[in-house]
């Protein structure tokens, strides 16, 4: 620990920064390619906890919150945050980005030492980054069908059984489907498809819990009260029940914020006598905006109108128009499902399209996640993938792996794939041309050309081949060809089914290019007396 804030200027600042970057890149480098090597992360504290075996660059970076070498720490944390952000946004491409960033920085610092101007270099790097992204997008082909999805999944998770399951799930659910990954009870991977819009929500009263197996209440031809009201008066509830019967419903689903004991008793009596089977669930969602969105979506799906307290709605004023209808509804202690609602299909389609456009137009990961879930629910189905390993550590590693693979496969279904990630980046070298023929432009081109070859070099080396010789052979191959490290042969990557999501590669190129362009302009580093551990980017 420095005794007082400490400032370092060039060239020492760059030297230390590069050391940290190199350290972090070297930790992530083994995880790149279809033959990744693991990184064992010791538990931070606590005796007896198992060390983690990780092969995800994003997770490894998250575990590294500080380096012992204080001078190198800022460089390492710079990479950590770049990688973490990338992991949050696309779920993969972290090692690729780290390797390219490291190469760009090494070459850039040499270039600056030889007299290049950092700011001019930055401008050229930014322009070239966009040109490379365009070249990658031009190579993309759509990802379609279960066999192709399975092949991409194989490149992400190595395990052929997991890949086959994910191939089926993603083929059925598509890019926008709801896919939940949970821990299972039996070793291996299982999947289940649940019909309808499924929300996390608790049954409001223990009286509604069922003793049957599975512990689930099922209703048919049910009317749905869609509200966020507190129901205190049983007379108001009685009106809703009468309306449900008048509408021809055989059951009632209540979505409310709270039910009084009196109201619960009324529902329970009618449930027991069979006059009107029912269940009541709390409004889905924790945040207010989540709850409002859920109520609106349920209204669209079931053809009802939500009764919202902000609008001054009261249950006593409920009419037939407020009641939604579903052919089938179910609830257990944690979830509620509404299937085959009576909503106008045109309105459902229009809402689906609106949400899809909102999803496309935002880059904010939490917003995208929320919209993704809403789109999935409107889509009418939910896939539950259950993963279980021999130990708790293996289970959590498998869950993380499957979640990451699902996220990447969604991106691949949306944006397409390129034949071989390393080969596609190598092919982009042809798009690297300086806008002006000045010295800095040439230097930026040379930097990017080397950086684009770096991932292929690492993939080949990780698989145990001579990287230099293979890269030289690849230079003479036509577009779309590459080196298949599994078979050890030069091949047409598309025919061999070696496909990588283009969205991941573009995100990795943007992250590496943007971060390198910024890092090259660092003139000084300030070290704090007691630097905080790096937590979130």
């Amino acid at each position, binding site marked *: 620990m420095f005794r007082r804030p400490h400032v370092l200027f060039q060239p020492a600042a760059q030297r230390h920064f590069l050391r940290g970057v190199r350290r972090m890149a070297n930790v992530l480098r083994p995880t790149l390619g279809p033959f990744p090597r693991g990184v064992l992360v010791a538990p931070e504290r606590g005796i007896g906890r198992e060390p983690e075996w990780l092969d995800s660059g994003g997770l490894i970076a998250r575990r590294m919150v500080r380096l012992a070498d204080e001078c190198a720490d800022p460089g390492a944390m710079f990479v950590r945050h770049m990688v973490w952000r990338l992991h949050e946004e696309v779920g993969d491409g972290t090692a690729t980005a780290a390797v390219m960033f490291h190469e760009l920085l090494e070459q850039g610092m040499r270039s600056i030492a030889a007299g290049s101007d950092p700011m001019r270099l930055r401008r050229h790097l930014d322009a070239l980054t966009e040109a490379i992204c365009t070249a990658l997008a031009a190579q993309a082909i759509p990802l379609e069908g279960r066999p192709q999805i399975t092949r991409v999944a194989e490149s992400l998770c190595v395990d052929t059984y997991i890949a086959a399951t994910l191939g089926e799930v993603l083929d059925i659910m598509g890019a926008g489907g709801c896919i939940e990954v949970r821990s299972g009870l039996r070793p291996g991977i299982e999947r289940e498809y649940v*019909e309808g819009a499924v929300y996390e929500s608790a049954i409001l009263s223990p009286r509604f819990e069922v003793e049957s197996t599975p512990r689930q209440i099922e209703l048919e031809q049910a009317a749905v009260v869609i509200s966020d009201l507190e129901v205190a008066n049983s007379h108001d509830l009685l009106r809703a029940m009468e309306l449900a019967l008048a509408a021809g419903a055989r059951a009632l689903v209540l979505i409310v914020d709270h039910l009084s004991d009196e109201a619960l008793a009324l529902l329970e009596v009618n449930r027991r006598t069979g006059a009107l089977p029912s269940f009541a669930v709390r409004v889905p969602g924790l945040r207010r905006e989540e709850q409002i969105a859920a109520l609106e979506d349920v209204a669209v799906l079931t053809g009802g109108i939500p009764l919202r307290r902000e609008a001054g709605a009261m249950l006593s004023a409920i009419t037939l128009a407020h009641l939604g209808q579903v052919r089938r509804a179910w609830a257990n202690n944690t979830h509620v499902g509404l*299937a085959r609602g009576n909503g106008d*299909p045109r309105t*459902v389609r229009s809402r689906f399209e609106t949400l899809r456009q909102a999803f496309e137009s935002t880059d904010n990961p939490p917003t995208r996640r929320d919209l993704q879930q809403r789109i999935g629910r409107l889509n*009418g189905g939910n896939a539950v993938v259950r993963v279980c390993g021999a130990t708790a550590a293996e289970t959590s590693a498998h869950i993380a792996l499957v979640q990451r693979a699902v996220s990447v496969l969604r991106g691949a279904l949306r944006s397409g794939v390129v034949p071989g990630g390393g080969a596609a980046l190598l092919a982009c070298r042809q798009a690297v041309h300086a806008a002006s023929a000045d010295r800095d432009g040439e230097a930026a081109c040379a930097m990017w050309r080397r950086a684009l070859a770096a991932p292929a070099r690492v993939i080949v080396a990780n698989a145990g081949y001579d990287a230099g010789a293979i890269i030289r052979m690849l230079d003479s191959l036509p577009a779309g060809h590459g080196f298949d490290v599994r078979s050890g042969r030069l091949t047409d990557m598309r025919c061999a089914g070696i496909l990588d999501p283009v969205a991941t590669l573009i995100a990795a190129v943007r992250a590496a290019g943007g971060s390198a362009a910024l890092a090259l302009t660092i003139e000084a580093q300030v070290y704090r007396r007691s630097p905080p551990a790096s937590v979130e980017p």
Partner: protein
Amino acid sequence: MNIASDEPDPVYALAATPNGTLFAGRRSGLFIAANGTGWTSLPVEATPSAASSITALAVMPQGDAVFVGGYGYVARLTASGALQRVSVLPRPLPLVTALVVSPDYARDGVVLAGTAEDGVFRSIDHGEHWAPWNIGLLDHRIIDLALSPAFAVDDTVFAATETGVFSSVNGGRSWRMSAFPRDDDPALCLAASPCSAQDVTVYAGTEGGALLVSRDKGRSWCEMPGVATDGQPINALVCIDATTLIAGLADRLLLIEGILDPCPRVVQETACQSITALTCLVPAPDTLVAIVGSADGQITRLRLR
């Protein structure tokens, strides 16, 4: 050919086996006409509801059995009409509106049922057990179903709904919307060209009288030129071969030829009242007979060529 009845007994579905046996699904039940002569009622017993209506029919590829659908069930009968099995669909009981059987039924055992309110049900064990598969199907009101001629390979199936056509490329397990040019015009019937295994050409008739064609597995649709329907709903379509299509309108039957050409032509137009179901027989290579069912209960044989 008419079945005498005091009350209107609309014909909901017609099907023909390769050897010429005809089946008719009507409000009053199932009827069979062996060799096209004399209609006989066939009882379908042990059904989950009292309603006797038969609303959907599908003949197995080899023609040795037929599936019939009604309120809450799908039943399988032999080609001679003997009841083999009744399978009850999952509750709440749906009304079956369309049935299709995989061309590779013997191997994959796939049968799909479209329903009036509950989307599509799928069986992979020769029609014994059924499960709803509606992922991506935003409209659950299925009016008709059609399989790609290469279903055994491409798993492609189409569903006509009130808001257009949905397609599935995984055997009906998930669906995607197509760019249907007429959002407010329900698709009433579908027919896949039997000779388009590569591109999958499929035709759709709408309530507004539009005859639409898609040549890219249902992704995009365009109106077929040269077929005047005067806005009459197209209730039934049968694709005979790569070049010939029969369309059953509310008031007439059209024989359309040259459907692959830029401008197909209607070569024969026969007046018929309220066509609701249509099937065809090809007793000889140069002979084509249409069997037409109508809302008023008439079943008519029309020799088209």
